[in-house]
């Protein structure tokens, strides 16, 4: 299953923490705002990194969904929607939002 990673620009506040995890998939602009340049994460490793980035973002701006579409479409997530990733890598234990 392919996982799609996006950054909601209306939630991103430029902390740039996602760049620590989504190394090759995210571009950070001069103000720290992130933009996903490679939205599909195929490998388990890439999915794991995306999950960490989503958990670490203080604004919940990293949106993760299955390629078929988001689980709760059109709803702006309060927290990252990591729950939609059924059947992919489980959330690493002890992840408290800072990796």
């Amino acid at each position, binding site marked *: 299953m392919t996982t799609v990673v996006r950054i909601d620009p*209306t939630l991103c506040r430029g902390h740039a923490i996602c760049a620590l995890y989504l190394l090759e998939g995210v571009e950070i*602009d001069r103000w720290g705002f992130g933009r996903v340049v490679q939205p599909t994460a195929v490998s388990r490793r890439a999915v794991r990194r995306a999950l960490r980035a989503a958990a670490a973002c203080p604004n919940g701006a990293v949106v993760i969904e299955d390629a078929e579409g*988001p689980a709760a479409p059109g709803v702006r997530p309060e927290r990252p929607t990591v729950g939609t990733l059924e059947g992919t890598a489980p959330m690493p234990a002890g992840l408290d939002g800072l990796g």
Partner: protein
Amino acid sequence: MIVSPGLLAPFHRPPGSGPLPGGTVGTVSVGGLGDPGTVLLSGPRRDGGRETLAGHVGRWGTLPELDGGQVLALLRSSGLDGRGGGGFPLARKVATALAGGGRPVLVVNASESEPASGKDRLLCARRPHLVLDGAALVATALGVSSVTVHLHRGADGPVEGVTRAVAERRSCRLDGVEWRVSRGPDRYVSGEASAVAGFLHDGDARPRFAVTPLAVTGPSGRPTVVVNAETVAHLAVVARIGAGGWASLGPPSFPGSRLVTHVGAVDHPGRVLEVVGAATVGELLAPGGVTGPPAAVLVGGFAGTWLEGRDAWSTPFDRTALVCLGASPGCGLLGVLPHGACGLVEAARIVRYLAGESAGQCGTCVAGLPRLAAGLSALAQGTFRRRGLARLAALGDELLGSGACGHPDGVVRLVRSTLEVFADDVVRHLAGAPCRGADHPAVLGVPDPYPTDGGPRSEEDFA
């Protein structure tokens, strides 16, 4: 060919008198409200006020009874494209919404946030029953029982036109749908489709970030079709004269008639005209008293594209032809920059306005647009240094595609075409030579920029 309204009237025919002649490409007619040769704008003239239901039915006849499949077939075979700016085929929007799960939501977007454009406002104020006829047809295609017509609060004439037209239709139980008239904030981005859909859902008229198109899932979770007022008005005509007859009102690549708005150095800035046939930009400007190529033409809206006057003059007003020049018909705005005015000064004014109209949600818009505006203003005022030009271009590249909506992209597009079309002026301004349009009065009628001193706009502005 120079065309003025009334001179050529190949399409002047009492409506309802049978299908229009086919194979009309090559004949052009451009006219305003009530002028001969017009289709959407036919009927009472400028001083005639709003067309009543009786007048409308008298001219067009009652709406043919069609089922959903027939309406969808009409949409498909006519090739009716969205007239709000995007040009997306309405048939595909409707089909997408039907394929999705859940009861669709239908919204007619008559907010026309583009301050210089006047076509949707004119239709709502003067020909509201065409808009409502078309909306009722789309409702049939979608199988929905209620339709919302969304307008800006400040648009008194259009709001009154639609409200009274709805009352007329209710009193004679004309439609099987329930009409709602919604009024939203008078802000530029509040007319964006996701902002309109969002406003109707939760009262927040700011564009939304969404990973799926509105027609798949809107803010309410239901498929949401947001369709421009002019688009549905055309559908009312399609239903009467047939898809083929309607399509032949335009060139094969650009079916149907269309509305354009003149602004800038024309006889009547803000005047809305309807073009029937394959016209060049020059032919569209001629009825506005523009007798030869101006210095430049702003095509498609404030967040549109400048075309050099001579290039524009002979270019067909056609999606394909305009795309080849990096432009798009957009909402049909044609802004004329006369010789002697400075395009940099005008563009700087527009970019300042657009920067102030950001909803203040996305970082790149908040951080980027004011810098873009400041850069272009400095260039216009001649206080810009040479190496700043590369920075300005790089900033534009960085902003492109970074927002939740197309607002930053539109501004970047305008800045790019400004630097390209007015390259001579850029050189003069960088060299410290006096601006060619130093004493020229403002041309394009750009509204005052929204005060941007307090950082991002407050949520109340968009509610």
